[in-house]
């Protein structure tokens, strides 16, 4: 496999895990705009422990997960007292605090970052991503997952049914933070280098977009959202020059086309984001869509049965 392909697979797997971390918070009605903060915790835990103590990769990943999860639970208590836009701002501020602290810490390399004396191939994040996908689908099928969806639907009525709103939210937020930490740890050992500038506000926004645009009603959403928005810029890398050549070609001079500026990819990405929000505000994958697909399958089998019986 080419280095380019394996690089894409790694970042795709990392983005999927990251998106599931944010999904668990969003699925209980909490918009988490602090994703980069939790990812940074995991990434720096892995990087620091490898570089300073020479711990093995599985051990450093585990530390990153546990640390990010603990930080998540610890800040969930104060942060989840806030609601709506205040919750979004509080999580955002949390991420700024984390990255600010790292930037000012000599021990963690400050603005220089840490180079990580460990490396994993693309299949490690991919296998982890498969495990995470299975885990989140499992969680959503349990009584706990049902309670998460109930809270997303209607907090007041969930309360009447005896759901511990605070408890479910804190646990979901904490597990989500742990997954974001895992994605950070994998990032550190896949790229063998971490610098705090890559865990910026834009990253938090992107991962939240993956989740919101993919759809928050089912566990398929983050998978589809993260995959779509990770692959799209790569596809545009080739498609965009071809498009420009074709458009200019309409006016004759197709042979002397300068390749379009890189930034056009992000213009298109932004436009698609706006379009999605207008056309499909519940996200790409909705519960009705998943149900229809299942009905379609059931319908097909029952139709077959009718044919054989009739």
């Amino acid at each position, binding site marked *: 496999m080419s280095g380019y392909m394996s690089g894409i697979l790694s970042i795709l797997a990392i983005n999927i895990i990251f998106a599931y971390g944010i999904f668990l918070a969003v699925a209980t009605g909490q918009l988490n705009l602090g994703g980069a903060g939790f990812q940074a915790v995991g990434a720096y835990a892995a990087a620091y422990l490898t570089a300073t103590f020479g711990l093995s990769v599985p051990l450093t990943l585990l530390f990153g997960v546990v640390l990010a999860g603990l930080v998540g639970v610890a800040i969930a208590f104060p942060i989840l007292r806030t609601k709506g836009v205040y919750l979004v701002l509080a999580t955002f501020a949390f991420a700024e605090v984390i990255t600010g602290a790292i930037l000012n810490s000599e021990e963690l390399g400050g603005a220089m970052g840490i180079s990580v004396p460990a490396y994993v191939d693309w299949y490690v994040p991919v296998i982890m991503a498969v495990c995470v996908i299975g885990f989140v689908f499992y969680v959503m099928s349990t009584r706990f997952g*049902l309670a998460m*969806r109930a809270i*997303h*639907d209607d907090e*007041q009525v969930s309360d*009447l*049914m*005896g759901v*511990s709103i605070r408890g479910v939210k804190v646990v979901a937020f904490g597990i989500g933070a742990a997954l974001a930490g895992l994605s950070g740890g994998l990032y550190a050992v896949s790229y063998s280098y971490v610098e705090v500038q890559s865990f910026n506000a834009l990253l938090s926004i992107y991962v939240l977009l993956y989740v919101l645009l993919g759809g928050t009603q089912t566990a398929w959403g983050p998978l589809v959202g993260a995959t779509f928005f990770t692959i799209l810029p790569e596809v545009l890398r080739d498609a965009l020059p071809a498009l420009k050549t074709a458009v200019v070609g309409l006016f004759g001079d197709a042979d002397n086309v300068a390749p379009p500026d890189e930034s056009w990819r992000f213009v298109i990405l932004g436009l698609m984001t706006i379009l999605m929000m207008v056309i499909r505000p519940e996200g790409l994958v909705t519960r009705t869509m998943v*149900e229809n697909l299942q009905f379609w399958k059931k319908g097909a089998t029952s139709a077959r049965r009718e044919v054989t019986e009739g």
Partner: protein
Amino acid sequence: MLEVENLDVTYGRTRAVKSVSLTVGEGEIVTVLGANGAGKTSLLRALQGAVRPSGGRIRFNGRDLTAQSPAARVRDGMVLVPEGRQIFVSMTVEENLLMGAYLRKDASVDRDIASIYERFPNLAERRYASASSLSGGEQQMLAIGRALVSRPRLIMLDEPSLGLSPLFVERLFTLLGDLNKDGIGILLVEQNTTMALDIAARGYVLELGTNVLEDTAEALASNTALTEAYLGGHGETATEEPARLA
């Protein structure tokens, strides 16, 4: 079974419920009547623990529940069917019923859900359909079914007939009668005065948060001065606003 003493509910500086006392006996149907803004919904919310009363006492089967969570009340056998039949719209019919059994850990939940389907064949047909696809009347049946899965000894209903077609109102009150025959106590808050007094044994009338009258249902039903003064006459149900559909 349920004893409420001098209950106060305050929102900021507004006292929505002022020193209301009422009782519901084992297996009894009791109705609370009153015009809009009389404090009926606030009373029910306090009874279920969704708001903390600012004064008074709530006892259920001898246990003081005033400071307990809604979960504790559901465990003890009190359940509220909220106004506007607030079902979980992103869930299937079956998942809604499972939410009613959220606090139960015993193995007979499946059997209870099966008995709900026997009671409401419409729901059985649609068990894997999205709850939001049900009609208003079916949603009300689902909300009641969901409450029943928690195995209540007292079921409290907030304006269950609001926005239902006459046919479904008829079915609703038949259902309440059936539930009562099974020994479940019912606290019914209604604007449909005639039907409520018809089914209830006793009734209370609230006005501006205070309990202004308390009598047997028969006596209240024959009290025409009451219906005109506090409840705005018999024609009221026909002019009600349409129900909120979740």
